């Protein structure tokens, strides 16, 4: 069976600086894959290469076996790659409901309607509400995004990504900056996601990584240092060395 997402010899250089070096990565359908590494390892760059924000200098990105390396970001999204951003990228002046409405509406091609009022798109509105329900955001549906506390904003990020009904979901530090009293909610959401979606999660918090991931890739200075199951990664001396002082000594 073809992998949901495959990255082959992906390389990205800015001038003489190589930020991604011959990275290979395979996400099977339903994968729960974590990408870890110290700051500046090029994790977010890799997400940007996969989603098409950046064009690679060499290598290929394949979605379900099809080469999408040359496709623009929006086209890749329409084919089933969704992401959340490390730094919130939301429609701050719109309501939470409208944020999710837009994702559903763009997916369904409804935004080509110039004459039909939003209020007449009943099915889209209902689906947007269902997504809000799933993330317990329904009470905030009519609040403007800029009025919400940070933890809730992280949930809106995820709600938008899920509203795209992705085959591959890239979560860029979904719980970063969220107080632990609220982060369990985000973790519960991730744990409860459709088992068919292939997920790549970037995370610094090892608690989160070990709870979510079944497989881990360690990225250092743009290259894959090693990969393996959580148990293998924990046992790896090189990973410990990279994370000197950071807590990887988990069961």
């Amino acid at each position: 069976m073809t992998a949901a997402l495959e990255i082959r010899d992906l390389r990205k250089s800015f001038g003489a600086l190589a930020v991604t070096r011959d990275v290979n990565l395979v996400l099977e359908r339903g994968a729960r894959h974590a990408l870890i590494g110290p700051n500046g390892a090029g994790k977010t760059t890799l997400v940007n290469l996969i989603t098409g924000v950046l064009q690679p200098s060499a290598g290929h990105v394949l979605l379900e076996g099809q080469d999408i390396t040359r496709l623009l970001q929006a086209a890749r999204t329409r084919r089933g790659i969704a992401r959340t951003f490390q730094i919130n990228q939301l429609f701050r002046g719109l309501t939470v409901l409208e944020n999710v409405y837009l994702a559903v509406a763009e997916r369904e091609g409804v935004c080509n309607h110039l004459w039909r009022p939003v209020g007449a798109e009943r099915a889209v509105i209902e689906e947007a509400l269902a997504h809000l329900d799933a993330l317990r955001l329904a009470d905030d549906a009519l609040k403007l995004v800029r009025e919400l506390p940070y933890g809730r904003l992280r949930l809106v990020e995820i709600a938008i990504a899920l509203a795209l009904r992705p085959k591959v979901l890239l979560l860029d530090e979904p719980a970063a900056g969220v107080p632990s009293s609220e982060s369990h909610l985000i973790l519960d959401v991730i744990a409860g996601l459709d088992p068919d979606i292939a997920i790549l999660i970037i995370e610094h918090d090892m608690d989160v990584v070990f709870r979510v991931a079944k497989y881990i890739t360690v990225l250092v200075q743009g290259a894959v240092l090693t990969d393996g199951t959580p148990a293998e990664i924990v046992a790896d001396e090189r990973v410990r060395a990279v994370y000197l002082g950071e807590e990887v000594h988990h069961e």
Partner: protein
Amino acid sequence: MASTAADPHARARAYLATRHHWHWAEALPWLIAIAAFFAFPDRMTFGTQVLVMVLFALSLDLILGYAGIVTLGQAAFFGLGAYTVGLLSVRAGYGEPITGLFAAAAVAAAVGFLTGLVLLRYRGLTLLVLTLSTTILLQEVGNLFKDITGGYDGIPGITIWPLLGLFDYDLYNHTNYTYCLVVLAVLFYVVRRIVYSSFGEALAGIRENVNRMHAVGSPVRWRLVIVYTISAAIAGVSGALFTQTSAYVTLGVFDFDRSAGVMTILILGGTGRLYGAFAGGVIYMLLEDSLSKLSPEFWQFGIGLVLVLVVLFARRGLFGLAQDLGDRLRRKPA
């Protein structure tokens, strides 16, 4: 609060389902416009100018206020519309007003579409300069073909046929005022439909966060080109009305002052709120009219002063300020 917390779904559904419904207050500007017709029958020439400016400002609001396209080149489309009608009349001997509007819209839309394909790759300051230069280029092309366009002296002898073959133009411009008000109403309805559609929602998304729009799979540039084309067509119609109602056009229609003036109108009135164009247009024209009588040379100082005050104390424009005051008054008794 108890009732609102009861069913967030119903509230959320109702919000989207009803926000495009007409509010009674939306009748006010139209009633005022009709009242003005009867109250100031001898000032209809001025009234006509105001309506033309409001329509022009509305065309800018669609792209600036809703899609967040910052442009200083809206006069290009106004000028194209104005010249389409002028040249049709003088060079082709065709003066039928309503088909003239369609011709003006088509020409402006075509240029809007073609320039939009290229220009809308850019944003911010780059776009500002590019739109401005496009307008200057058009103006200079007009100057190059002076024998056709009449240059800065204008084309004399524009004749517009009676409206619908029935209503001829009177000295006090009563026909013109009514004509412009009807055209404004029709195009306002079109803009309002677009703004409350899913396409309009996508425009708001582009304005609020273009990165996120790419990341939800929106064909951003395509959407921008479409709305830019529509806006150009509306600006073209306003230019056509300008020529038809003044029976006169010079290359001055492409002046930077016009692009900047219409931007000022929106800042005064408030962007992205449909009726901001009305409030801003009326106030701007009244200020210009009264201040230039007071001091023909320094009237712009007065406009500048009001602009500074609005930017400092009423960031959402005078229409926004009025809304805020209305909200506060309504809250007080409770």
